[in-house]
């Protein structure tokens, strides 16, 4: 299992459009992926789930990846949070 904390730097948080991209990205891998904010953990397979976390700029979110291709999945999602999220 890989876990990693990310600080949401995009001012508007994680909106529907980047959420769509994130879900599509996560679906490419076999590993189970989830996001955790505070006490709440949701599966990364649903727009509704991500929206319900209400992530805002400045929030910290924990990514949890578990499965056979977890290294690749975590790396891809890392790129998403660190680079793509800013450009979306």
């Amino acid at each position, binding site marked *: 299992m890989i876990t990693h904390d990310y600080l949401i730097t995009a001012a508007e948080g994680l909106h*529907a*459009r980047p959420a769509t991209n994130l879900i599509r990205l996560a679906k490419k891998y076999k590993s189970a992926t989830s996001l955790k904010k505070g006490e709440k953990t*949701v599966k990364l397979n649903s*727009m509704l*789930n991500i929206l319900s976390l209400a992530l805002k700029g400045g929030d910290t979110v924990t990514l949890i990846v578990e499965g056979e291709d977890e290294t690749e999945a975590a790396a891809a999602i890392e790129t998403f949070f660190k680079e793509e999220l800013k450009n979306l």
Partner: protein
Amino acid sequence: MKGIGASPGIAIGKAVVVEKKRPRLTGVTLQSEAEVKREVLRFEQAVTSAVAEVEAVMDTLVAHDGPTEVLEIQIELLQDEQIITDVVEKITSEHVTATDAVMEVIAAAVTTLHNLDDAYLRERAADVEEAGNRILMELDPTLKPSELIVSENTILIGEDITPMDILSVDIAKVIGLVTRTGGKTSHAAIVAKARGIPAVVGCGDALASVRGGDVVIVDGSEGMLVVNPTTEILNEYTAKKKAFTTQASALNALKDIVAVTTDGVRVKLMANISNAADLEASFAFGAEGSGLLRTELLFMGRNTLPTEEEQFEFYKNVALQAGGKPVVVRTLDIGGDKPLPYLHLPAEQNPFLGYRAIRICLDRKDIFITQLRAILRASVFGDLKIMFPMISNVSEIEQAKAILEDVKTALRSASTPYNAAIEVGIMIEIPSAAVMADLLAREVDFFSIGTNDLCQYTLAVDRMNEQVKHLYDPFNPGVLRLIQNVIEQGNKFHHHTGMCGEMAGDVTATLLLLGMGLREFSMSAASIPYVKDLILNTSITAAQEICRTVMAMRSTPEIIQYLQAVTKR
């Protein structure tokens, strides 16, 4: 009343209110495992149909170069794994109907989002609700809006105006659209822009006070709505409306002028349409017929294939409306990315490279023959031409033409009249077809270049894919060479070669295409005056020089910069 101006202009008319039927809980308890299984299946099918419908709308949006983001979010929500899991779980464990399960799951999701302290997320609740409603309508078609009775000068007012609403009214009589919800990219906004009528969206709850029959002023430029205005205000807006029309008509003044270059070369400007009403609207912009009649609308928003009679009526109306002007009828261009749920086409890894358009028609000959019979029978009412989409080789043309001949023979032996000299053409949208245009030209009467797909296939770019869509570029020198080849070969064989992709309506490309030898442009009607203005002010010699210069250039930015400069001049 204030809303968001979604399509400019001013309309003054009578309100017709679109009532939405609210779904109700059925309260039924499922009695057996078989019933549970059936409800789960019904739910899954409803999701598939709902997705297909949104994708169909998205497709028209892409054709109009509109933003598709909102609809992509709809698709994502319709396929949301959490929602799907919750609904299936509810049906199986609580033995409730699919309708009840969807209503409860969506209501819970909407409440969750509403309770979050974030304006953006509260708006998304509306998206979730809309996704839910789409599924509910698929589950219970009686929830779909019923037919509206509209008279001349109708202003359509509703919660949201959906594609289904539009299909159920005589849209030609609608002069304005107003909605309670939605933004600039809502269905209402798209439809209004395509038809050139004013629209105000997102008016909020205040709209509930408008009654059917009220006199309404829609100011789509300012995003204003006035209900039952005083004489003073009415006069003010009548003057405003006149001013707007005068401005718009500066370009409309070109409507009845034929497009001829300064050195006397005649160019035909036509409109891309989906039905007879579009044709009427396009004549107002000076269209000389239609270079593309999409027939997909006939097949969408229903549960079975349209019959030959239904199709015949549709083509006949178009032919009559055209009043002798040419209309190019494209045979069914569906499948893969825009499926028809009732055809039960399997999902594909690569829909754009898959089972679609002519490939389906040559396989499902029953569908193809019915459509060809209907077109041929309607061909005596005007100048219809037949066009096959997605041609990649000579054999497909031969097969399609052989079937067409069989249909003609059958009609002849039944003494059914049809235009024996009907022209047959193909879309050039696959690179192989563009490269061997010289070979294909011998087989058909005309070409029509579909730049959207041609560009996508040539550059190997899915322009719906956020990560690569920046590579989608019709001015790529490789794409331009293919287009040039098609036009040259078509002209060599004395064909009329047309273009019906977006590029045909892009003023940046007009002079270049003219220089390549293109003489038929088919586009969204609203672009015609702009393209015509350019043609009237240039000579073919100048356009050819521009073409030579561009074809020597190596990069898109260079080409576009140059074309924009010469276009302004």
